[in-house]
């Protein structure tokens, strides 16, 4: 089945880097939806429910944290796995993200391998694990 991934980052270069890493990681059959801020992401979420959402924190209009909050508050979207990119060392931000219960925090600077591992984990076999949890 085709997997849908939303990537929210205001830097086009960063989005391209992400897509490249995920493609290299061997996850096949993936559509990437690129958005440049949180508001756009929310608009997109009204049309598609992705298998994974990757977001930066510092974005214009609506930042990453508020995007995550909006997703978690909506019962339709609450199950979407979320990866948040953050700058290292900002422990307050990290704590807040942990309270928000995101799937993964990706601390900058990260390597292509970090991204590949996450992609494999959340888009590859990882998804089956989620499905299993939901059973009785």
């Amino acid at each position, binding site marked *: 089945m085709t997997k849908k991934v939303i990537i929210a980052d205001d830097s086009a270069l960063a989005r391209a880097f992400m897509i490249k890493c995920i493609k290299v990681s061997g996850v096949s059959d993936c559509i990437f939806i690129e958005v440049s801020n949180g508001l756009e992401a929310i608009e997109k979420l009204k049309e598609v429910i992705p298998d994974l959402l990757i977001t930066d924190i510092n974005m214009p209009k609506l930042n990453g944290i508020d995007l995550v909050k909006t997703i978690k508050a909506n019962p339709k*979207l609450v199950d979407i796995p979320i990866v948040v990119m953050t700058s290292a060392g900002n422990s307050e931000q990290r704590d807040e993200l942990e309270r928000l219960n995101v799937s993964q925090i990706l601390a900058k600077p990260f390597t292509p391998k970090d991204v590949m591992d996450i992609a494999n984990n959340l888009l590859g076999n990882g998804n089956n694990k989620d499905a299993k949890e939901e059973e009785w």
Partner: protein
Amino acid sequence: MIYNKNLLKEFSEGAMEISAEIIKLLDELPANSGSELGSPLLKIHKYIKNLIKSSEFIWLENTAKFLKQADNIIVAIKDNRIEVNETLVKSVKELFIKFEEIIKKEDFEESKAIFTLKQAAQNVEKGLLIDVKILPEAKETVIINDGIDKIPVSDDDMLQNFISDSNEQLNIAEEAFLLLKERGFDLEIMNSAYRQIHSFKGNCGFMQFDDLMQISHTMENIMQFMRDKKLEINKKSVSFMLKYIDVLRNGIAAIEQNGDSSIPETEEYIKKAINLFPECFIGSNIPAKAVKEMQVLKQDEVVAKNLTQIPNSNAHNIKRQDFRVDLEKLEKIINLTDELVIAENKVSKNPEILKISNKSLNRSISNLQKICNSLQDATMSLCMVQLNGLFKKMTRLVYDLSNHIGKKINLVTVGENTEVDKSIFELINDPLVHIIRNACDHGIETPAERIAAGKNETGTITISGENKNGAVWISVKDDGYGFNKEKIIKKAIEQKLISNKSKLTNEEIAKLVLRPGFSTAEIVSDISGRGVGMDVVQKNIENIGGEIAIKSKEGKGTEFIIKIPFKRIGKYRKEKV
């Protein structure tokens, strides 16, 4: 409540859609039957779970409670505890229609309407199909009774301290009695039990819990005779004490739950004690409910004097020094420590620093690493609890069960000092109780059977705990019947858990007993046999990310091995990326 309007709007929009989906699925329910029910039910269950997650996220506590209750109903239908019929489906549907109406409102908030809805859901589950429609209107009749206002005593902190102290005192006394039963009379152990009940009574007096005080005072009287060797320590007296300790414990639990300290049966308990051990009460001023405070005090002074003269050399009584710390503060320390270790790594692994070959710098860095690691170990151990409290509880359980079913069972505990995370500790209690109940009831043979099989008359159950490979391993092993493979397979085919052609490995056969509803017991006893317990075991253990394995040899016994992670995943900190 901490939420903002936008999030609330987001929630209500999504919830409306999902609720509509649920109603649609409910419509399909009565038409389907039997096995086909599973898939729409699973969908509904999933939807509700998502609703719960979101509502908890934005702190809609009552909404979450209502949804949980609704989910209970769905699970009950799935487990065949409630029969699906049109009335039931209609009631559940109405719940969700009402729910939609409530969340649709612009100024939706956690109103009493939601609370009423929760109660309506509860009634549906109980089978009282009350018309839901009228309930939300009758706002005035809803009394949100938390019971907290009933607690008469000073402040909450004091009450909390009292409760935890009391539980500890009762635990120590219980342990002492179990030891006395095993070893016979021992003055030091006896005194340790006496001291606990004595101070328990004192605390109750201080908190003005009169009923608890009277019962413990009665116990003290009897214990005095036991200590002075005027009353024999035997099954009768020990069982009596254990039972009364439970009475006190229930009393404490009631206070904790709803602040109600009265025990209506107090006088009966006291009368019963006098009937059983009349010799202990000659010339005593009990049971008159109006025990004069002064008299009690006088008596206490004497007792206290006696007690202080007894050297407190028993190893059991070396008390650790404890004090309470807010869990949040603790978690902050743990998080900061992790942060520190990461920062330390960043510095010491920094390529620029690695380039420098300076002995003194290297030494400083390795010293820093060492300290960081020790600090991390130390903070980790802050939230760790030893298993021995849990094992002690099991000792009591086995004692009670073996008396109850007339088997002779000896419980051996190994590795009580193994430490586990506190959150895990609380979650493994239930599974362990189930496994041990099963082992006592089905695992161990009756004394006659054991002799016939050439075994020792007394059966042995061994619980052991161990830290190995970054996980905690708990094993419960009995030397009883073991699994009868044919019987299990036959039963599984009967219950359509497997087809009669399937070939199973030993492991798979053993795993069958964990399936819900599976039981080979011909008769359902009051201890086990319904086939629910082992299912719960597996669920609970999987919930905390653990695994369970079963080894069994017919005629030799069965071993349950539980592997649980050190820490609850995601509780404090996700693994470093």
